[in-house]
């Protein structure tokens, strides 16, 4: 890492003659994150405290916000919907986690699938389909009314948002809670039994408290995701929530309206607060207690009646979780579906419409999500290397900055870009920077960077330092060590990061919706949103939705396969530590 190993690239730079390649890349990445994450968000926060006319510092905007009935209601609604989504998501996740961690149960594979299925469909895609299944005149209520004479308001107003969100986001709680339960060493439970404790009492006093940090991490994530989500309320036509209000103010009233910024500030503040609170609670409570050689909690077989109960629970949840998918399929292949339990007839017409009229959505998506994912893995690999393998001062800040994107809602990033770049004119007739399609790619890249970065970090941590030292001792320079040893060994992780970034960027709506300049530049998610606006377009919207789901499902499957294959290969080679 001394100047003697400085790669030739940096040596040609006469302006900074003593800068190493790593330092140079680090500075470039820091500048990128500054320009496209920190400054836009700072700008949004700053404007929230400015008087729109005089430009002086003021708290007036916040006063106006809380004096307006609509905003107060939106704030309370957002809070209520998020909290209730956490409650319902817990009600779904808790029995599933309990069954898998405590019992030998054949349905465990189904439960694992339940943890993935919802995540492959963005909630806004299934929202309209859910209305057709569970709405006032949807399949379920029509049948209920016909046979029993009453309806259940599943989808009325905020209920609809809560239902769709909790079905979509409960896996976050399930995954975190299950992991926490799995990490409890068997001896923790045995010690309690040895001292005379058993059954529910032991679960309450010992097992659940130990799993609490995992549960809270999942619950905080669900709360933030729901609080920040724009697409679902928008598609369900619920506008009295914070994110839709921010979107409507900026697109309706204009870029200078302070209310959009106040709402953005509240969204960011809540996200940061929730992450900070869960971090604070978790600190010093690393309850991962599994010892080497010890197993997780002991499992017992279910009695026949318990087994029945478990299957009924799981199948009910499975039906609920699959209903948006089912509804979407019906919508995509049905002709007319209104006031009837099922569509009148089935057709392929909607897919034909999509392929003849709306191909640009698909190509744009591949271009945007693909480019964003490439940017993510390049930045992710570089940041991982700089953080883990160099001694550059302040290197941790690259990690913090990139990860900070997690706390920034898409709407806020979109508004920040609009504010910062609407005055920037691009050369070559590309027009305003804020409505140039390239900015969508950057927004997607910044939003998905934390995921790609984690994948790259994990991959690099598994490459033993001694493998690099071996290459260097055989005479390889730093650059060629990275190129010939480090990156090839990280391939699995990098690929997994790419696929995850791609699949999730392909269906991202909240930042995109603010930045799409014209329909011909729009990606899939935006196309779905446009189609779903009118009853006539729903069929085609659903067809696009199915394409999106297939894309994400394939991506998820691929990244799982890559990770598994990589793990298998690693297990076979003695060179890696861990």
């Amino acid at each position: 890492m001394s100047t003697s190993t400085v790669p030739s690239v940096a040596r040609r730079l006469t302006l900074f003659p003593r800068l190493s390649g790593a330092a140079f890349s680090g500075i470039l990445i820091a500048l990128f994150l500054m320009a496209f994450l920190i400054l836009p968000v700072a700008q949004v926060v700053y404007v929230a405290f400015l008087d729109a006319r005089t430009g002086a510092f003021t708290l007036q905007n916040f006063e106006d916000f809380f004096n307006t009935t609509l905003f107060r209601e939106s704030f309370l609604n957002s809070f209520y919907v998020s909290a209730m989504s956490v409650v319902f998501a817990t009600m779904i996740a808790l029995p599933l986690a309990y069954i898998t961690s405590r019992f030998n149960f054949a349905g465990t594979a189904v439960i694992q699938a339940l943890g993935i299925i919802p995540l492959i469909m963005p909630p806004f895609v299934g929202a309209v389909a859910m209305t057709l299944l569970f709405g006032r005149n949807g399949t379920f209520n029509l049948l209920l009314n016909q046979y029993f004479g009453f309806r259940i308001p599943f989808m009325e107003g905020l209920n609809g948002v809560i239902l769709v969100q909790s079905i979509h986001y409960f896996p976050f709680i399930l995954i975190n809670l299950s992991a926490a339960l799995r990490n409890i060493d068997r001896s923790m439970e045995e010690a309690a039994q040895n001292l005379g404790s058993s059954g529910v009492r032991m679960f309450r006093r010992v097992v659940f408290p130990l799993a609490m940090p995992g549960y809270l991490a999942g619950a905080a994530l669900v709360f933030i995701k729901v609080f920040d989500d724009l697409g679902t309320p928008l598609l369900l036509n619920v506008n009295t929530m914070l994110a839709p209000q921010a979107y409507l103010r900026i697109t309706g009233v204009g870029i200078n309206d302070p209310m959009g910024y106040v709402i953005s500030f509240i969204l960011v503040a809540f996200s940061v607060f929730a992450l900070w609170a869960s971090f604070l609670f978790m600190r010093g409570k690393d309850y991962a207690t599994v010892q080497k050689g010890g197993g997780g909690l002991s499992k017992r077989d279910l009695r026949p009646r318990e087994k029945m109960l478990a299957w009924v629970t799981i199948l009910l949840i499975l039906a609920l979780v699959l209903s948006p998918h089912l509804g979407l399929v019906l919508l995509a292949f049905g002709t007319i579906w209104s006031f009837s339990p099922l569509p009148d007839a089935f057709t392929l017409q909607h897919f034909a419409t999509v392929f003849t009229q709306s191909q640009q959505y698909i190509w744009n998506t591949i271009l945007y999500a693909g480019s964003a994912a490439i940017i993510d893995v390049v930045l992710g690999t570089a940041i991982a290397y700089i953080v883990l393998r160099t001694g550059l001062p302040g290197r941790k800040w690259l990690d913090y900055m990139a990860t900070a994107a997690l706390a920034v809602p898409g709407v806020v990033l979109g508004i920040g870009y609009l504010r910062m770049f609407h005055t920037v004119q691009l050369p070559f007739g590309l027009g305003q920077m804020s409505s140039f399609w390239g900015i969508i790619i950057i927004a997607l890249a910044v939003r998905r960077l934390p995921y790609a970065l984690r994948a790259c970090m994990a991959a690099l941590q598994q490459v033993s330092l001694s493998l690099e030292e071996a290459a260097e001792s055989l005479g390889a320079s730093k650059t060629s060590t990275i190129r010939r040893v480090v990156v090839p060994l990280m391939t699995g992780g990098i690929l997994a990061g790419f696929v995850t970034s791609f699949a999730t960027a392909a269906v991202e709506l909240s930042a995109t919706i603010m930045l799409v300049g014209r329909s011909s530049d729009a990606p899939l998610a935006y196309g779905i949103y446009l189609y779903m606006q009118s009853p006539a377009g729903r069929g085609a919207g659903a067809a696009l939705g199915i394409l999106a789901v297939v894309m994400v499902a394939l991506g998820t499957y691929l990244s799982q396969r890559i990770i598994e294959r990589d793990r298998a290969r690693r297990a076979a080679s003695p060179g890696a530590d861990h």
Partner: protein
Amino acid sequence: MKHIKTGIRIENLHLSFGQTEVLAGIDMEIQPGEFFAFLGPSGSGKSTLLRAIAGFGPTPRGRILIGDRDVADLPPWKRNVGMVFQSYALWPHMSVRQNVAFGPEERRLPRREIGPKVEAALELVGLLHLADRMPSQLSGGQQQRVALARTIAVEPQVLLLDEPLSNLDAALRVQMRRELLALQRKLGLTTIFVTHDQEEANTTSDRMAVLDGGVIQQIGTPQELYDTPANAFVAGFLGTANILEGQCDGIRFVTRGGHVIPVAKPVANARRIVLRPQNITLQGNATEGALRGSVRHREFLGSQIRYLVETADGQIIVDTLHSSGTQPFDEGAVVGLSIDSLSAPLLS
């Protein structure tokens, strides 16, 4: 804290994990107040046996009597045996005091009795001043003591210790084993101690059982087991042993290589003789000894020098005391081995 001394009797205990039999017919009796060790290599079934006494793991066949009560069919929480886990298993979300109070609370003791009981237990292990710490703020040795206090606080009939010293560093291990023994003597609590370390078993236990392959190889005091091992496994597991094959005729043991070793107590049908390395001396004059060989390898161990000597009966390990100034034998030197054979045990 008073304990009524309780004995343990295990009768014909079998236990399997699926198809694999881990305990194959265990019979033993542990006296009230005894400090008893289960010694064996990993996979010998010693921990499984301990866990079966506590009620963990698959249900065994056979009887486990604690006092007069057969506990084999009772769940762990009804057995009243105290177990200290290898990992200590202190609950990280509870303070030291809460950890120790857990057992008395589960037994629904009145609140005014719990406090003094907890303090007495912590006092006993010398950690009363740390009662309000969290387990993560304690050192390994302190955690170990808390785990011990937590177990003692419920006044169990017997105390089970599963490799209690294995997570401590070497110096602390020696100190802790002395403290454990002192505490056991003070309470008079029947105690079983599982270990794979023969030194730990030797220094603490009144008697011990050596296990291998799910079978008890021998039970006895440490000295009995060392001096008169029942078989080659026990001989080899307790200290280093040279085991020579041959035949016993009357007062002599004739090795396969033709060497004659006189024995004090001849055993009919004896096929093997156990020679401890320190009971053999080397002489430079090769003709004197009954056995001859050449030095293959030499290791300097400080107080001793260990030689590996190639003989007609295979390689033999010889330990000689080292005192400064003496000249050790070189590798390749031809030496005579004289054997203090009167104490050498014979095996069938």
